[in-house]
């Protein structure tokens, strides 16, 4: 049930399918062991994703790389396979590549908060749990990260 979002979270945080697989697997095992500490009635998804994100961060650090993301976007207009977003819009190739490249140039903290909020579509509350910060910090970090992203996008 949570495999998809766990793997996607790990992948977007590590940028590596192999690391993401390890992180998601390890995250599930650690979550199982930590289940007695899970507060009954609280949302499970961010609790699980926090553990997975932690594992992903550990792998990212142990790999000793500065999070050189290998993300790419689906070439929608050539393949015609990509599903349009809920808004029914698509980005042009240049716009998409420029945006992705700009996101990848951000520092780790900015990228993580934007990843959670927009690429994983987590709420502020969920993002706060996953990144282990307060909700107010998510707000301020998001605003700062968007400003930096905007600067990165400027010609």
């Amino acid at each position, binding site marked *: 049930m949570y495999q998809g979002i766990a793997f*996607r979270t790990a992948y977007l945080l590590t940028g590596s399918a192999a690391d993401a697989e390890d992180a998601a697997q390890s995250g599930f095992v650690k979550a199982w*062991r930590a289940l007695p500490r899970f507060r009954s009635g609280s949302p499970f998804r961010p609790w699980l994703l*926090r553990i997975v994100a932690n594992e992903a961060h550990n792998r990212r650090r142990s790999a000793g790389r500065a999070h050189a993301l290998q993300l790419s976007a689906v070439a929608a207009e050539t393949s015609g396979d990509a599903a349009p*977003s809920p808004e029914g819009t698509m*980005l042009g190739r240049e716009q998409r590549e420029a945006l*992705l490249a700009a996101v990848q140039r951000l520092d780790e903290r900015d990228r993580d908060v934007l990843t959670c909020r*927009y690429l994983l579509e987590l709420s502020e509350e969920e993002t706060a749990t996953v990144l282990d910060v307060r909700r107010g910090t998510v707000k301020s970090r998001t605003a700062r990260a968007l400003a930096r992203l905007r600067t990165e*996008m400027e010609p």
Partner: protein
Amino acid sequence: MTELEQALGVLAWELDVPETPDLTTRVLAQIEPRAPRRVERSRWIVAVTVVVLAALAATLAIPDARAALFRLLSIGGERIELVDELPEIPVQDDLELSLGERVTLEEGRRRSSFSVRELDESPDRVYLGERGTVWFLHGTPALPRLLVAQTPLDFVNEDLLVQKLAGPGTRVERTDVDGSPAVFLSGEVHLVLLIDEYGYVVEESARLARDVLVWDRDGVAYRLEGDFDLEKALRLARSLG
């Protein structure tokens, strides 16, 4: 939502994320049965939990004892666990490293989220530690005379535990500080750990603590650590104005 945010939302749908691998078999293989090879840290956490659960189970039939045990286990945001023997884990020898960022007293007051209480004697050093804790060190890191920790309880609830592991050589007494329930640990050193709701040890290595008085009041958990008896500890606690 700005145009940039909308574009990020669209990018989320257009990212080329590999297909999710089936993790079920591998995860189950590690948790069922319990894996024999496990991280050292996990082993003792589980071992301690088992000991505590066994103690709880043995006590559940006696309401008064159960209530007492729960009070003992959780006070001032701290959980005190009685174990047969202390686990062998790395101990933080450098006291300063375990306390946090060194700041001035004024900065400590200003940056804390609550009204910091102070003894008549000014601390020699002040630190801001994990979860909003303000530490006062009297003496030096090499020769500490007294440590005072103040942690806002909005950071410390059942999900985040300052876990003290007390072995058989540690004496645990329940008392009170001006009516607030308190626990005094004395005798042999015990381990202090910070563990979050996910089972992660927040502090990378444990710290050995000496005689400790723990209590909470007005949403703040207080700890006094030093070489003192209960009477002196209570006197110090009451003078923390």
